[in-house]
């Protein structure tokens, strides 16, 4: 009898798993070190801004929060497309989209809160119905809805397909948020880095480096959080199917009595 063994099966699990875990640990440590450095540079090293004074220090965390939220929704969008595409259809994509969107919701919430804290002293109000703020709040609600839809009962395939379609619909708001400062009269300033109108960067020196470090550190934190959430989703799915197996066995035993 000829038996074929897949390459994965030939490799003992003890040698496979730690590689991913070690890489993830490195990402986590780098994210933590980067965030601590961003806080130190942002609060104590960088100078106050000529116009904004010390309020500028909030900008070392606020734009990175928004960037990570966009990244999270972008990843959820790509993963959902991959699920809907028949050739790449896999539960992996559905789980990845769910994990990424959940982390994205956390970062969108933080974008709104840090923006509000910055708006109070600079604009004189915690909230205004500015196009950017309004579309961002809508984005937050849309993805909260997406996370709620993920819990609607149904077969695995139906749920995953429904989730993927919902993620694609919710993503429509992402470009609207980004271009709202260019499309409408907005109180919110245009991006300091890569401004599409002026094609110039309006932040320089230690301030620019600190903001860049913030972008990198929070991106690493995002990777770490999504990986953890993705793993949790995998375990929950396994737990769910195991619970079903137990229920089926119990049912069979009941029938046999």
């Amino acid at each position: 009898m000829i038996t074929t063994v897949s390459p994965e099966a030939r490799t003992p699990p003890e040698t496979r798993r730690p590689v991913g875990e070690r890489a993830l640990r490195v990402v986590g440590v780098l994210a933590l070190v980067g965030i601590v450095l961003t806080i130190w540079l942002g609060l104590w090293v960088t100078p106050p801004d000529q116009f904004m004074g010390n309020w500028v220090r909030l900008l070392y965390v606020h734009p990175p929060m928004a960037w990570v939220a966009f990244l999270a929704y972008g990843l959820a969008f790509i993963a959902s497309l991959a699920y809907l595409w028949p050739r790449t259809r896999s539960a992996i994509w559905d789980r990845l989209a769910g994990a990424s969107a959940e982390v994205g919701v956390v970062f969108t919430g933080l974008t709104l809160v840090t923006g509000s804290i910055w708006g109070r002293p600079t604009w004189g109000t915690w909230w205004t119905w500015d196009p950017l703020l309004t579309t961002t709040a809508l984005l937050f609600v849309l993805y909260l809805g997406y996370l709620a839809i993920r819990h609607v009962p149904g077969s695995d395939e139906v749920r995953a397909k429904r989730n993927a379609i919902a993620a694609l619909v919710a993503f429509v708001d992402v470009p609207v948020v980004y271009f709202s400062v260019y499309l409408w009269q907005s109180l919110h300033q245009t991006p300091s880095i890569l401004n599409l109108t002026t094609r110039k960067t309006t932040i320089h020196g230690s301030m620019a480096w600190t903001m860049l470090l913030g972008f990198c550190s929070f991106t690493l934190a995002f990777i770490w959080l999504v990986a953890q959430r993705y793993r949790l989703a995998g375990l929950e799915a396994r737990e769910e199917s195991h619970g079903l197996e137990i229920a089926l066995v119990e049912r069979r035993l009941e029938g046999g009595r």
Partner: protein
Amino acid sequence: MNGYVIGGYLVVMISLGTYAVFLVGRLRAARRRLTATLPDAEERATDDTGSFR
């Protein structure tokens, strides 16, 4: 430095820290529950091929 700036940083750190701790806690609890019932469950979940069973 002022209260708004410190408050902004605190909100970010506390929220992300709480979320990370919450995730790790749930992950450990799920692993414990599964390994108690299925010794190879964690390995199978990690090596998931993505197919719906």
